Each structure stands twice: as C-alpha cells, then as structure tokens.
C-alpha cells in the first residue's frame, strides 16, 4: 500500500516536472529544423514581396488556417480548413499565388509553425523589416500549463549583440532591443529567438 502511494507521488512529480519544463533548447531546435525554418522564411518573404499578408494556424491540429490579406483599403481576415476550395478562390481573387501559399502551409505544418508575419522596426528614424515566425512545438501542449511559443526573427541584415547574446538596437545605440515587448537572443547574425506566452 505504502509502495503504491509512493509510485503515485513519483508519477505525479514526473508529470509536474515535464509539464512545467519551459527551457527547451531553441538553438538546438533551430539547427535541427534549419532547412525547413529557413524555407518558411524564404517562401513567406517571396510571397509577401508580391502582396502583404500574414498567416496563422488557429488550432492545435494545424487544420484551420487564418489569413490576413492586406490591400490598399482594407485588411481581410478569413479562416479556412486546410485544402478547402474556398481558400483557393479567395487567394486568386486577391492576386495571391495559391500554390505558393499551399507550399508555405505544408512547410509550416511540418514544424508546428503557428504564425508568420512581417514586422517593421525603427533604428535612428529608419524603417527596417523582419520576418516573425512563431512555433508551437507539441512538447508544450499540456493541459493547465500556459502555452509557450518559440519565436524566431529573421533580420534582413546582420545585427548587433551584447556579450550575453542579447539583441541590441544598433552599433552606436547599445541598449537592448525589444520586439513585441520581448528581449531576443542570438542564434546567428541574422536570426534571433525568444520564448513567449504570445505567438504575436
């Protein structure tokens, strides 16, 4: 009887430990999936250069996709089932390439990527862009535990970092830069990461 109780407590402790684990090595994750992640960034920026948009998976199964299609007058937000005919019609209507979007969706699903967007940021009055990619690996999918997201930012040019690897505003302005209220750390000169409660 005593032994049985001990097993239950031990099991509960293990579950608690695993479900509260927040420090999965993102650098490792990035290097393991680098080719796919870099492809997501590449495909996304290519489509975005033609027409601005952002893309989100709204469910855990990565079956529902929400598209924010920006035009001169309005931003249209639509939600579809992956592969739904209605999505192709809509994309064509707004001048998007459905094949390219489908490629992006496939890539995103393969690495549990929940959000891709283009963000502007400013350094000394100059506007710059970065690609913002949020990952929701299944390792974080525990009930009653706050969802955590890996965020990757792809910059267009090499960035500056302090000795601890924190992203800085610039070479002259050596204060830590925040993006979406989060401090980012170095993976390489152009790619940074953070762990966040929000995917955007």
């Amino acid at each position, binding site marked *: 009887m005593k032994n049985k109780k001990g097993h239950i407590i031990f099991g509960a402790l293990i579950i608690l430990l695993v479900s509260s684990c927040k420090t999965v090595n993102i650098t490792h994750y990035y290097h393991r999936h680098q080719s796919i992640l870099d492809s997501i960034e590449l495909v996304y920026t290519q489509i975005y250069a033609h027409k601005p948009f952002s893309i*989100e998976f*709204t*469910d*855990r199964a990565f079956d529902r996709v929400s598209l924010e299609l*920006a035009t001169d*007058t*309005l*931003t*249209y*937000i*639509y939600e579809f089932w992956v592969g739904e005919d*209605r999505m192709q*019609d*809509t994309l064509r*209507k707004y001048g998007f390439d459905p094949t390219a979007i489908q490629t992006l969706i496939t890539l995103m699903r393969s690495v549990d990527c*929940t959000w891709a967007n283009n*963000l*502007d*940021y*400013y350094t000394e*009055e100059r*506007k710059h862009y970065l690609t913002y990619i949020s990952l*929701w690996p299944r390792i974080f999918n525990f009930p009653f535990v*706050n*969802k955590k*997201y890996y965020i990757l930012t792809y910059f267009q040019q090499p960035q500056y970092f302090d000795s601890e690897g924190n992203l800085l505003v610039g070479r002259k302005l050596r204060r830590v*830069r*925040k*993006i*979406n*209220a989060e401090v980012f750390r170095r993976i390489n000169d152009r790619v940074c990461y953070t762990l966040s*409660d*929000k*995917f*955007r």
Partner: protein
Amino acid sequence: MRPRLLFIFAICFYAAAPARSQESYSTPEEALAWLNTAKLPDTSLYWPNVKNHLFLENLRANVTHPLNMYQGTNTNFCGYAALSYLPLNYDPLQYVRFMLALYTDGQASWHKVKFTPSPEVMLAAGTLHFKGVLDIRPADQMWFLSLADRFRSYLNLFHTRFHTGSEDTFWAACNLGKFNRMIKRMMGYKIKAIGSDLLRPGIRDLYGYLQKAVQTGTTFLYVNNTYLHVKNHNKSRFSFPTHFIVLTDIQKQDDVLTIIYWDYGGRTLRQVTTSFLKKILYGVTYLVKDNDEK
C-alpha cells in the same frame, strides 16, 4: 465562386466609400494650409525630445491619411487612438491648431478642456520606442500622452504619475465611462452609449442595433480583444473588455456578420458569428447628433 465570397466583394465595394453620417467642421486642405503657414521653433522648450521635422511630418501624415494613425505595439493607448478618429476625420484644422499650440506653448485648449501636461509626460514624448511606427511619430506620442495625463478614471487610481514604461500599464488605460466623457467634453458631440466595464449589454437584436448605430453616426465598440485579436491558444481568457475599435460597416448573411472596423493603422474586414460578437462586446457608443455648442 461561392455566394458568400460574392457577398463580401459587394460589401467591400460599398465600404470603399468615404466615411459618412458626420458633418465635417474643416477639411484636410484647410489643415494643411494652416500647417504650411505656421512658424515653429527649431526645438520646443516644453517638449525637448520632440524633433521639429518629425513632428510636422507626423501631423501632415495624420491629416492626409487619418486612418493610418497607429496606437503603438503593446501600449494601452487604444481609447485615445479611437477618440482621434473624430478630429482627424471631421475637424483636422482644430486638431492641427491644438497640436501646434501644445508644441509651442506647452499647453492648449480643446473647446473648454484645458491641457497642461505634466513635466514627466513632456519629457517622455518623443522617447517611446519599440512601438512600431509610433517610434517615429512624436506628435502622436504627445497626443496620446497628453490625453492619458489629462483624463483619469478609477482604472488609473494606482498609477497617478507617469514613469518610464507607463504607456503599457494602467496609467494609460481607458474604460468606457472615461471614453464617453472624453468625446462629450472635448468634441462636444452628443452620444448614445450602452454597456459597462464588466457586464455585457443585453442587446437582443445585435445586428439591428449596430446597423442603426452605424447609420446614425460614428460607432465605437468596446471589446474583449483577447478573442478578436488572438495572441495565444489558451482556452481560459479574461472576461473583460480591453480594446476600442471603430465600427464602420456591418452586414448580415444567415448568422454570419461581416464587420468592417478601424483598428489603428488601417481598416479590417472579417466575418464573425452573432454569438461571437455578443461574447466579445461590452460597450457600444455612437454619435447621435452634433451639439449646438460647437
């Protein structure tokens, strides 16, 4: 082509028309002409971190593209940004005059409301950063900070003075009562409002109500943004309103509502169910007619 898609395109064509149902008191051309003749000091004694050229650029951009005004990433300026919809669209000249007076004299009046921003706010304007395009819009920083500094409510009770980063805290928060008060006292409009900060309004025919509101005058919705602009996949979310948006059009097909709203930086079209809109909606404020005092 699906019928719903056709329906949306029909709405978009209709929605491309300029904002209506509100009398304009001045035009963008008048505001720009005033701006072009105004003489500004190179630096303001009162706003040391507001750069002259960015300030003027910002005002011109607001007058020519009022829908592009942006509240800033992660700030609590949404109430003030929503309020800005009125002067920028219906009285840009008054807006420009007010901002220039504030810049040169350190104080200004909007109708009967006098603004004397605190020294902390004056020092902060122009220094807010990591807020997207708000970083390079010092006039918007001045405007938002001055409004937050001038109008207070119970939400701001424990954040009386501005400190670095206060723009993201309850110091800048705006509830429904304060929002309505700002419209009435500053803009002089008569409004109709329903809702509260905690309980949803019991509107039986939501579509009918909102459609009538939009046709009557500029309509503001006080919503729970954790559902409208989802930022995480948590099942449990706060059940209180957090955000103001301007509803510019609403159409219904079956149980699907197609809404077009201004959400700072631009207008958005999306389809929601009536039950979803009821779930996120905590307040509706719309202008009924212009006050005689104007």
